[in-house]
């Protein structure tokens, strides 16, 4: 063990303010680089890979205590849960029969209308490991990453509806930005009349909003909003939100509506990432030629 270095007799380095200035400039440079361009994603992924085993080891005692407390459940709790599960099974069975009938009817109607089928997606189920400790955003970390084939941009759903979108992918984990994040938005369609809208988060845990709504838009409290599928990110037909109230314009030419998300954005432990099933390669469309004899203006 070597002793601590002594203060040098003759100082041959920059003064404290100068060194501080250099570090501040370096930090601001990094901040700008990371905020405007994603140039640092490689560095971040590397450091995260180094930190990941450490975090897993630190979380292990918590998991053990939960295992132990889960072992000592009483007979009464088990019996009550058994009854509840039986009721739920009966209910689900009835629902399932309904759903089969509805699906058959729906397929018929779609064929009648000659509509394109729902684009294929493969769900990848992951477990939420932790929420990101950041006062500015609503994000969670799931235990599926690029090793499982995930890519940034894919939608994340739960059993009830849309939850968010994969925004950063690390080797064994991925960061999911929830729908309630301020910067997150989803194109939706009103189920009642097909009105296309954009729903965005407002930084609150269980509210979404529709900004810049047309003053005369036909939107009422109680309307169901589904993804419209026109952005190419979210497949069509995922339930997103239910309108709670609409606010007439004040000080601005636009109205505003507040909605409640249908998916358990902050609730569940398991979510499904929708992996797009690759479409068959379409031949490249040739660029349209200008008609002959038509001089460019």
């Amino acid at each position, binding site marked *: 063990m070597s002793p601590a270095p002594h203060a040098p007799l003759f100082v041959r380095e920059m003064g404290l303010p100068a060194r501080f200035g250099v570090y501040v400039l370096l930090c601001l440079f990094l901040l700008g680089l990371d905020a405007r361009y994603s140039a640092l994603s490689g560095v971040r992924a590397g450091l995260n890979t180094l930190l990941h085993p450490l975090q897993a080891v630190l979380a292990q005692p918590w998991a053990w205590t939960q295992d132990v407390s889960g072992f000592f459940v009483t007979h009464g709790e088990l019996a009550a849960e058994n009854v509840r599960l039986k009721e739920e099974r009966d209910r689900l069975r009835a629902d399932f029969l309904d759903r089969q009938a509805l699906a058959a009817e729906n397929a018929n109607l779609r064929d009648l209308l000659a509509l394109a089928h729902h684009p294929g997606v493969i769900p990848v189920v992951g477990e939420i490991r932790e929420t990101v400790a950041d006062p*500015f955003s609503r994000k969670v970390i799931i235990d599926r990453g690029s090793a499982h084939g995930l890519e940034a941009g894919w939608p994340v759903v739960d059993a009830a509806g849309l939850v968010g979108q994969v925004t950063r992918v690390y080797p064994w984990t991925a960061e999911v930005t929830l729908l309630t994040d301020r*910067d997150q938005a989803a194109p939706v369609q009103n189920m009642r009349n097909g009105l296309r809208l954009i729903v965005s988060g407002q930084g609150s845990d269980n509210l979404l909003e529709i900004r810049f709504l047309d003053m005369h838009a036909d939107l009422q409290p109680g309307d169901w909003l589904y993804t419209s599928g026109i952005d190419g990110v979210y497949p069509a037909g995922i339930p997103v939100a239910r309108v709670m109230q609409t606010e007439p314009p004040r000080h601005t030419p636009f109205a505003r509506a507040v909605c409640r998300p249908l998916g358990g954005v902050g609730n569940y432990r398991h979510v499904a990432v929708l992996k797009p099933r690759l479409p068959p390669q379409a031949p490249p469309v040739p660029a349209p030629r200008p008609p002959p004899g038509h001089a460019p203006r």
Partner: protein
Amino acid sequence: MPRAEPPAEKPLLPQGAELAPPPTRLKVYGSLALSLAATLLPWSDDLHWLVPDFTLMALLYWNIHAPRLAGLGMAFTLGLVTDVARGVLMGLNALAFCAATFVILLVQRRLEGFDAPRQSLQVAPVLLGKEALVLTLGLMLGLGEADWRWLAAGVVAGVLWMPLAWLVDRLTGRPSRPPVPLP
């Protein structure tokens, strides 16, 4: 006429056992790694905004007592690691750590002679200021609305400084009284 002898029971400089042994690299780097691990623990969501930044507290402690071992470079490195672990913009915590280190190094000579309670009065504003700086930088960079509850982490850190610094003082063999009695 003999000159008056200075009073022998009040030496001007600390003598013998009163001097603390210099901190070793193992103690400094080990405690920094431990505190970083403490911030990486899976804290509950409801408590996240109350958990103080143990990394910064350990860093400032060693800035006071071993400034040659933990300086601006260490602050920058630990800040970047914290940024990655929290998933925020690279350089946000690094900048805040460097600023806190700079302020502490400016007054390091004075803080070195103080005991833990007197230190805590002067270090607490720096710990609170770091949280405020992170939130303000986030606002300036357009990360959205700041959650000002997170300032509570700075207050908790300031309150915890006294017992934790006292504990580390005892563990590293520092004398319990300030070496130079105040006039």
